[in-house]
């Protein structure tokens, strides 16, 4: 009986929750809705814990794999089962997703308490859980793609939760479409996989790859890897498809925490790590992965510098951190990437939820320029936020320090240039995070006039309206804070006296790059350089400290200074503030021309004038011919006789000619 873990229950439970709430939630009280949502999420979490604990002891141990007795797809030689797969990688993922997910559900009960469409929110949230768990538990690419697309849908729905706001609706749509662009590549990658391997099943593919050497040039594996990478850039908000994520902050804050920080956006990293067998045999593709990751990390960090919306800062920070993870994958340090993914899930969720608590406290205000001095007013929030900020900044021994440092170290071994990028990014991260911290919690309270148009329209009995969130919201924060503090302990590198448990845990699930490749050689090197690693850890701490000091100086000591500085370098500032005009560029160069061509060329000219014109023209021409032919019918008898006579003459002459020339 214990043979079958019934892994399918893990995603299915939240789906049931979603179905119950979606179908009947409108008639439920909020209390019932939240009970349903929480119950199923918790059950899923429990089930996941049980599975992760039991799986290694069943049969041959991990990876554990089971199919449902019926396939999802049967066509010709292609068979796609509902197959679930649990190895070390998915174990981590499933725990993070269900665990963090459950916490965020709890938080949301408080946060959304006064929102309309309460049942809808939880239905969507549970639906998201279902898809995300499908994604991480799938045993083949296609089922993974189900989750992949599904989380996109949930994201679309949740971003557009306040659908009456044009900006929210736009953001949701943008997220979905941009993700679809990535999915396009993912699909193509899958087609090539089918073509090459005849299967989409992970074990089948990786088994076939076992003895395949790394590709020297740009072979099929490289193309597949690049297509997968492009798919990942959509989901994990990498250049060039990161543009949707900042806009996605239109969604309610728990959504931002769950989907756009902790879980969904890491799907790309999970997918790359999952495909490590392919990527590791495609060194060129790996290089591209690393470069994209690095670029995204620093690029997003710079954009984060100038944002004033608290959630947007976090959003760019997420993009930047995701870049880190991708970069880690790019240097074949998949374990480091996943490690950071996990810690990031803790502290970024915490940051978002904390930010949500802040926003909640100030009545929906999201602009940091209108915050300040909240330290005393919402102390619990302040403290958890502080932990999170220090974690992300990489202050030891918090979780972020270990994971980030691991990435930087691996990068150094692989490509010092990328390390520089990562290093600068670390400094920038520290700076903008502390900027946020100072702007929000220190200085004067700069709230705007009261009771302005608030998305969270609930009144407040405090004089200034600022109030601490209820405990149902704070409790998850505390849990996450604890996780942020201690979560890094599973990955303390040997150089710092730890055992890097997570690294070893993940090792069986991840195919290390083959030794003959550059990444492979770097890996070898990394194993034997303990003392250098220690030095680099010091450098990381230093740059974080520098960021802190800069932020302290500009936003605490001399709060008027930033304005002066930005005035001096106005052009650059505007460039950064406006996110390098990337959105505008996409709009002008891609979206607008496409729409223009569609409307003014394809529809109005090609369709209406050319094709339909030809069709109607044929009709018109027939009519015109008919009109001309009618003129034969002049009504005059003599004319008629003339036609007959001429016809007769022609007939007779023709026949005589035929008769003579027999």
């Amino acid at each position, binding site marked *: 009986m214990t043979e079958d873990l019934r892994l399918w229950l893990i995603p299915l439970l939240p789906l049931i929750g979603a179905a119950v709430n979606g179908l009947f939630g409108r008639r439920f009280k909020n209390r019932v809705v939240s009970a349903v949502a929480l119950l199923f999420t918790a059950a899923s979490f429990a089930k996941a814990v049980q599975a992760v604990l039991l799986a290694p002891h069943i049969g041959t141990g991990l990876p554990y794999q089971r199919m449902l007795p019926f396939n999802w797809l049967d066509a010709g030689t292609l068979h796609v089962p509902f197959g679930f797969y649990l190895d070390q990688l998915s174990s981590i993922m499933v725990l993070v997703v269900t665990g963090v997910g459950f916490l965020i559900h709890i938080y949301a009960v408080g946060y959304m308490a006064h929102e309309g469409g309460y049942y809808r929110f939880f239905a969507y949230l549970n639906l998201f859980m279902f898809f995300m768990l499908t994604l991480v538990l799938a045993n083949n690419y296609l089922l993974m793609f189900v989750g992949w697309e599904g989380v996109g*849908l949930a994201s679309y729905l949740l971003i557009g939760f306040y659908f009456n706001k044009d900006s929210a609706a736009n953001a949701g749509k943008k997220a979905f479409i941009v993700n679809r662009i990535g999915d396009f590549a993912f699909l193509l990658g899958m*087609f090539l996989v089918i073509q090459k391997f005849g299967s989409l099943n992970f074990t089948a593919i990786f088994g076939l790859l076992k003895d395949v050497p790394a590709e020297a040039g740009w072979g099929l594996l490289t193309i597949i890897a690049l297509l997968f990478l492009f798919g990942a850039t959509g989901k994990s908000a990498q250049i060039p498809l990161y543009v949707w994520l900042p806009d996605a902050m239109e969604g309610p804050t728990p959504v931002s925490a769950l989907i756009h920080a902790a879980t969904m956006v890491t799907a790309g990293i999970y997918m790359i790590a999952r495909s490590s067998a392919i990527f590791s045999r495609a060194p060129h593709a790996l290089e591209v992965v690393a470069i994209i990751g690095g670029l995204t990390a620093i690029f997003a960090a710079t954009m984060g510098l100038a944002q004033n919306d608290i959630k947007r800062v976090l959003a760019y920070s997420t993009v930047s951190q995701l870049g880190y993870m991708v970069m880690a994958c790019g240097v074949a340090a998949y374990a480091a990437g996943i490690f950071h993914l996990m810690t990031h899930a803790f502290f970024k969720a915490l940051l978002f939820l904390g930010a949500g608590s802040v926003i909640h406290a100030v009545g929906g205000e999201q602009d940091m320029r209108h915050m300040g001095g909240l330290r005393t007013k919402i102390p619990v929030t302040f403290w958890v936020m502080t932990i999170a900020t220090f974690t992300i900044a990489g202050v030891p021994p918090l979780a972020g320090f270990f994971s980030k440092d691991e990435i930087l170290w691996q990068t150094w071994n692989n490509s010092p240039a990328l390390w520089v990028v990562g290093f600068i990014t670390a400094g920038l991260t520290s700076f903008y995070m502390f900027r946020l911290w100072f702007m929000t919690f220190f200085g004067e309270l700069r709230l705007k006039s009261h009771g302005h148009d608030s998305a969270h329209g609930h009144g407040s009995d405090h004089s200034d309206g600022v109030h601490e969130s209820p405990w149902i919201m704070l409790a998850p924060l505390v849990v996450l804070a604890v996780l942020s503090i201690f979560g890094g302990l599973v990955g303390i590198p040997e150089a710092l006296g730890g055992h890097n448990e997570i690294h070893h845990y993940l090792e069986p699930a991840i195919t290390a790059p083959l030794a003959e490749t550059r990444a492979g050689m770097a890996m070898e090197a990394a194993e034997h350089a303990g003392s250098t690693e220690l030095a680099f850890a010091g450098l990381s701490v230093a740059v974080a400290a520098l960021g802190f000091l800069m932020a302290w100086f500009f936003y605490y000591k001399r709060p008027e200074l930033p304005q002066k500085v930005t005035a001096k370098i106005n052009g650059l500032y505007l460039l950064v503030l406006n996110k390098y005009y990337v959105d505008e560029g996409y709009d002008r160069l891609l979206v607008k021309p496409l729409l223009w061509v569609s409307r003014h060329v394809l529809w109005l000219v090609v369709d209406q004038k050319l094709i339909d014109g030809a069709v109607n023209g044929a009709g018109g021409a027939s009519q015109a011919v008919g009109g001309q032919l009618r003129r034969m019918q002049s009504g005059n008898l003599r004319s008629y006789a003339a036609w007959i006579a001429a016809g007769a003459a022609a007939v007779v002459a023709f026949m005589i000619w035929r008769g003579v020339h027999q």
Partner: protein
Amino acid sequence: MDLHTSILTIVTFLPAAGAVLLMVLPRNDRVIRWAALLISLLAFAFSLYLPAYFNSNAQDFQLQVTSQWIGQSIFYHLGVDGISMWLVLLTTFLVPLSVLISWKSIHDRVKEFFVLLLLLETAMIGVFLSLDLFLFYVFWEATLIPMALLIGMYGHERRIYAAVKFFLYTMVASVFMLAAIIWIYTQTHTFDYQAIRAMIAAGHLTAFTPAAMQWLFLGFFIAFAVKVPLFPFHTWLPDAHVEAPTAGSVLLAAVLLKMGTYGLLRFSVGLFPDQARHNATWINILAIIGIIYGALVALVQPNLKKLIAYSSVSHLGFVVLGIFTFTQAGADGAVYQMLNHGISTGALFMLAGMIYERKHTYELRRFGGLATPMPVYATFFLVAVLSSVGLPLLNGFVGEFLVLSGAAQSAPHGMIYATLATTGVIWSAAYLLWMYQKVFYGPMLHDDNKALPDLNGREQLSLWPLMAMALIMGVASPLWMKAIDPAVSQTLPAAGNATSTHSSAASLTGTPNGLQK
């Protein structure tokens, strides 16, 4: 005369008999509506016999019925295989819903409406079941009249233009098919599909030179291409859809267009495999142009129905592409996509009709923010949109994925086809979500929209089956594929070729299914 041998006849002609019954009933709209609903439900019930007793392992057409009809060579010959069975079921499934959807919206000349609807049903079923080319043509043409009348009598402002255009366009094209059918007959002295297929495959007929076959292929192709409609023969479709009454649109999109793709698979490919292969390149190019072009034009439509119509052009492009990849997966996917499109576009048209009943317009700018007054409607609409977008676990994805993967495997330009066609997943998301946003999201722009009533029970009742099907077909595709797969491999004579190039890899792994079980 047991049920087994007469079931196809019953399924085909029960609606027509019902139509006759309706004709003699008194002009009491209530009675007529109920009668039409019961008849169509009865037809659906009978049609369920097909999957129940269908043998997925049989190679041949099943439940065949043959009797001499006209002269020595024209037979009343019906038969069903995995392809036609589901299309028949799609038809019988959608007609009761079409009746429901027309319950209130048709209030003038009710009797005529339902009579036409039921006659149309018979003709459509006949098209799918005919195994005699003459009979096929008879049913093919017979669909024209009821549909044109439905559009012309119950449509909107430019209904006459649309009806005439629909009629003439299809008529002109089918004439070429008739010429081809007759020519085949004069050479083979039979109209029997299987016999002709065997004869052509055997290659003993001297008259069937490659040139002649090419002409025959084109004769059939043009008729089907217009019906599909394949770019650039598609311009009748938006007009027809925009003007048609809801039930007309539903059946037009869901079933009538499938007659074209069904014909392409059954006749163009089935009878002339060599010519089909020979011409596949440009047909695939047209299909891909259709996919992208239809989507881009849909993207800028200001009219809800027109947008859905152009989306049909795009979706049907997938079907044609799937058929002409000559891969098992591609053709399987194409057939599945036919069903999917029937379900999802049928649902979209029904939903469009519901809002038209309330607002009397399809102009997108007249909507906006409707999710607030009509949450149920918005939810149904969303599911339909997602099914059309091709979201996994809904029906649309399965077909699309198979078609595209089939395209990728097809030689020699497969990856190019696949790449271009796969952009379709981006476009469809773009135009459908844009449309959905225009209708449901954003602030309420028009005050009169605030009080719009949400869906009533009847409307929900007519949508639920479609939603359920969209989900079931998305999750449990093997239920359908079990019958489709052998039928397709039967119809694609050399389907093995295309897939065999990859079977080396597959055989290495063993089938993944086997590996895991």
